[in-house]
């Protein structure tokens, strides 16, 4: 029984981080219509800069702010200088450019900082509270709280703010967007910048757990990708629910079935959702009128 409880609770904690990794992908998908594969490497740049600052004496708060600032900047630059300009050739070149950018960044990181995993500071390892006998550190609590507020914030932004609504319109209908004067280029840059910030934030929670290497955030984005496919590409709320569900599901699979089955279960459930509900569990289903 304790095994089950702990599996469930820790599954939720890690699942929320999965959701957060999906959130950055949704933000870019909503304005641009493709997935960015470069978010993990954008985060890595921020994290390595942050770690350097931390090692030379910066406190945790400054480190965290620096990580987010650098990721935001790098995200914005990648969008502004590489990917968004390539969109004029279509979605595929733009999406491919995110892969190329990712590989270039990780190549440069391997060259400069090397592939060794290192430890990354966290909020605090001391126990904050205990849920059904499972100890939660302040880092866990901060991760859950920050993720939750990010999700609420993004949800409100996309559904209530005019800019948020416009961002969704940009990708949906180019012609209308142009005629209505929607500043699509600017909105796309905003989305890349915001996604960069989210990647940095995600990194702050991933790096202490996975330890910081050039690939640590990337390995998690796979789960974020599944979360948004299962939850629905256009649904922030869907990413949250699906990410959490993935966390619990993979944890239970690993505990009760076989850890090597985790990827199989993950991808199979993603395919199943795609087959049954192509727009995801929480994506709005488009009825076709006859």
């Amino acid at each position, binding site marked *: 029984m*304790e*095994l089950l409880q*702990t*599996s469930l609770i*820790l*599954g939720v*904690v*890690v699942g929320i981080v999965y959701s957060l990794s999906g959130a950055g992908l949704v933000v870019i998908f909503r304005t641009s219509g493709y997935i960015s*594969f470069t978010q993990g490497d954008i985060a890595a740049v921020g994290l390595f800069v942050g770690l350097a600052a931390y090692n030379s004496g910066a406190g945790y708060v400054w480190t965290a702010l620096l990580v987010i600032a650098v990721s935001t900047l790098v995200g914005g630059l990648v969008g502004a200088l590489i990917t968004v300009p390539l969109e004029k050739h279509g979605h595929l070149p733009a999406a491919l450019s995110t*892969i*190329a950018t*990712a*590989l*270039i960044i*990780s*190549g*440069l990181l*391997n*060259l400069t900082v*090397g*592939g*060794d*995993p*290192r*430890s990354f500071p966290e909020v605090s*390892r001391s126990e904050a509270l205990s849920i059904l006998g*499972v*100890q939660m*550190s302040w880092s866990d609590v901060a991760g859950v709280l920050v993720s939750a507020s990010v999700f609420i914030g993004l949800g409100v932004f996309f559904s209530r703010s005019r800019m948020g609504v416009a961002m969704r319109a940009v990708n949906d209908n180019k012609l209308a967007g142009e005629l209505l004067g929607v500043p699509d280029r600017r909105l796309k840059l905003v989305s890349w910048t915001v996604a960069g910030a989210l990647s940095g934030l995600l990194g702050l929670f991933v790096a202490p*757990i*996975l*330890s910081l*290497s*050039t*690939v640590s955030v*990337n*390995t*998690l984005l*796979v*789960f974020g*990708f599944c979360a948004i496919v299962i939850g629905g590409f256009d649904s922030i709320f869907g990413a949250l629910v699906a990410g959490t569900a993935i*966390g619990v599901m*993979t*944890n*239970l699979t*690993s*505990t009760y079935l*076989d*850890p*090597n089955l*985790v*990827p199989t279960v993950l991808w199979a459930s993603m395919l199943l959702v795609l087959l049954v509900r192509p727009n995801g569990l929480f994506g709005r289903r488009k009825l076709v009128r006859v």
Partner: protein
Amino acid sequence: MSKKLVGLTVALTTLSTALAGCGGGGDSASGAGGDEIVIGAFSPLSGPAVSASSGIYATKAALDKVNDAGGIDGHKIKFIIKDDQFDPAKTPGVTRELVETDRVSMLCGPQGSVPFGAVKDYLAARKIPTIVNAGAPTLAGEYSYLVSSPFDGVGAMLAQFAVEDLDIDKVAIAYSDDALGTSARDGAVRILEADGLEPLGEIKYDITATDFSSQAIQLKATGADFVSIPAAQANVAGLVINAAEKIGYKPIWGLSYAAQNKTLVDVTKGAIDGRAYFATPYITEESETGAEYAATLAEYAPDVEVNSGATIAGYTIGELCVDVLTKAVEAADGEVPTSAQIQETLSSYTADNDYIQGIDWSDEPDGAAAAQILQLKDGKYVESKPFAPLP
């Protein structure tokens, strides 16, 4: 998706490798006297696994030292290192270059079970002998000689150490479902059963996973005081340990030279200091021979991590290669030995020296049959139990 990324990484990091200029081979030693002995190896000189390359730099250090002392009977050793990025898709290409273009007479210390697995048959077909720097027992063959102890014995030795030396009978095993992990598990179970015990849990993990909380929970539930996880590399061991300690489970950890390095200490933030034991067939910096090793490394490869299991393994293999080549040169009457002559030497080679004990390739081409146990104490690896035959 990540696989695709990895695949593409290969293509792009080739570029960065070229930029870094670290893909090249060893400098040809312009030795006076006899002809050069050309040998080679592959290693992840760049890419995500670049940290493992400390092993090849240590191998090279051992060879450079001999070259600076005049070589082997006047023959300098030309050591050509090719970058395969630890990617078994790249290994065959660089190995062909070594064999067919560079005409190496043997491979000395190519790294990695998976990369070497990709070229083992090719090398055997070309009759190029190799002293392999990897642990998987399946790699041993007519032309491939292992140095690192078999993990069955490593797992057995750790279990024996827990039960007999630490007086712990509550032992759990964490293992990955591969040749290394399962043989380490079987070795531990064998010893425990011989002592009338059984493991409180055999918890499987996936080395590619990101989240190890499930394993942590299961390990904690066993209530074991000693967790044996010898086949894990430092990064995976670190993740498992961190996940367990995070939920308040702090047992004694049984590891091996595979995880013995700075990365483990760094990733676990020193939390396991005093509670981690490492079974290894290799020496430590603190020993008498180790001082000589450290001095050589400081001179020829000052940037690599001295205390890492991979570095010491690499260096030891370098020393073995020198010894083997010396014998092969003798057998060739002072001339540069051919591959066949080196193979002949290897197939009857035994070693019981300051660096490695229990190598007997005249019997089986597998690794050292003796190991010691080290304890991580104040950031250093100190001897906890001296060298003894693997149980």
